[in-house]
């Protein structure tokens, strides 16, 4: 009997109720701590997820801002470039166009027949060049706004190329360059007419500027998913560096300097911007002194 009492005393030392018993309390504490940990854990997990989402959002926004910033910087540099083109290639020639014209009017008897003729030819050429350059600057500005995406329409490509050749025929004749429109007559396509015209115009002008004589040919090929227009010339050609300079997404448009010939780099800038707008592409193949072939791709959709 005394053994039972002793045992009883060992298990329930002071006969306290079960809820005041130490195993029960410790279990209670453990359960409490565990549930607290679980709650904190889930809270933390939810917080971490939210944080990750926010971080992704911030990253996306930063990327967008950085892209916009790059675009702005590029435009800024192009504007700076345009300032120098306007001052060097427009204002200065215009001043001297005026000075020469005035000298011709006022000092006619003092000027030799030969110089008069020379000056008149120069005035004719310069005014044409100035018109072409300002048209191009206008083209570039016009398509800067991406919302101004043009609409596709049906048109006769053969006729359009004939029209472009008409604009530059005077220039080509001076240099004995033969322009060949190898696009079949009444070749109708459904495309962006204005951008394609500006691109072809710029490529033809480039070709004329960088060749002494020979042929410029424009061809077309229909593919399953789009159109390929090829502009071929027999000019001075381009070096690898020049091509990678054109293809690369460089901020600075360095003027092409081939055998002492100088361009203002505006042509390819416009071509690239317009191709981006109409989701097209282009490739250049060239050999020094053999000529250049430029393939333009315009997708159907």
């Amino acid at each position, binding site marked *: 009997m005394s053994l039972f009492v002793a045992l009883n005393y060992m298990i329930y030392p002071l006969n306290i109720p079960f809820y005041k018993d130490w195993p029960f309390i410790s279990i209670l504490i453990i359960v409490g701590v565990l549930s607290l940990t679980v709650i904190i854990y889930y809270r933390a997990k939810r917080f971490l997820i939210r944080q990750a989402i926010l971080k992704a959002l911030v990253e996306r926004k930063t990327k967008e801002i950085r892209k916009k910033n790059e675009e702005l*910087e590029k435009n*800024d*540099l192009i504007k*700076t470039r345009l*300032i*120098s083109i306007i*001052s*060097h290639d427009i*204002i*200065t*020639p215009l*001043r*001297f*166009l005026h*000075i*020469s014209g005035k*000298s*011709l009017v*006022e*000092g006619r008897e*003092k*000027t*030799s027949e030969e*110089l008069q003729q*020379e*000056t008149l030819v*120069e*005035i004719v*050429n*310069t005014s044409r060049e100035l018109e072409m350059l300002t048209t191009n600057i206008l083209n570039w500005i016009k398509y800067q706004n991406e919302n101004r995406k043009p609409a596709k329409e049906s048109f006769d490509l053969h006729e359009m190329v004939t029209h472009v050749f008409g604009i530059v025929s005077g220039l080509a004749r001076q240099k004995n360059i033969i322009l060949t429109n190898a696009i079949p007559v009444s070749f109708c396509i459904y495309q962006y007419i204005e951008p394609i015209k500006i691109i072809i115009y710029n490529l033809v002008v480039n070709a004329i500027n960088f060749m002494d004589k020979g042929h410029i040919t424009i061809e077309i090929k229909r593919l399953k998913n789009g159109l390929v227009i090829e502009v071929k010339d027999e000019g001075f050609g381009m070096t690898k560096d020049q091509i990678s*300079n054109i293809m690369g997404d*460089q*901020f*600075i*448009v*360095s*003027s092409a*300097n081939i055998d*002492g*010939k*100088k361009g203002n780099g505006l042509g390819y800038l416009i071509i690239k911007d317009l191709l981006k707008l109409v989701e097209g592409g282009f490739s250049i193949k060239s050999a020094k002194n053999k000529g250049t072939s430029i393939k333009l791709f315009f997708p159907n959709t």
Partner: protein
Amino acid sequence: MTPCILIADDHSMIRKGIKLILQTQLGATDVSEVSNCSGLMNELLKKKYTHLILDIILSDGTSLEVIPNIIKLYPDLKIMVFSMLNAEVYGEALKQYNIHRYLQKTTKEEDTIKFLRDFITDKEINIADSNQGSKSNPFSSLSARELEVLHYMLSGNRTKDIATILNLRMTTVSTLKNRIFEKTQTSNLKELIQIASLYNVNY
């Protein structure tokens, strides 16, 4: 002595304009034209000229690269520089070659004619008078060499390309580039291009 004049400019319209002024207003009949540096050197070799009207940017390089040679080979040739670029900057740099006649293309017509007349009649110029380069322009402290490098930097060439064009070592070009950034207080090419346009040093 009748002046024998050579005009070096990359714009044919400008060459014709100057030629007309020289012939109709100033009575100079012996006027020739060239459009680039190599043509310039060839022409000087062929014929004895007394006066040279020189643009800075020519189609195959800048005349800053050939001026030292011209001066060495033709010490009697009188040179005047006629350019769109800022006189404060380039005029200052050219003084080290003892070229004190610098006419900006934006000068008024009457002043241009007067300047040309003074030039071909060899009127004495007051050196002190032409010495009014403003120190406020960040580019006016650049040397001729630095201006050459600046020109190629602004047209987008890399250090390697500039070294090839000017026949310098890469390290020399880098040093010159750093000095340009330092003197103009810019830290990158973008800033440099912007202030170059502002001060009309860019083309």
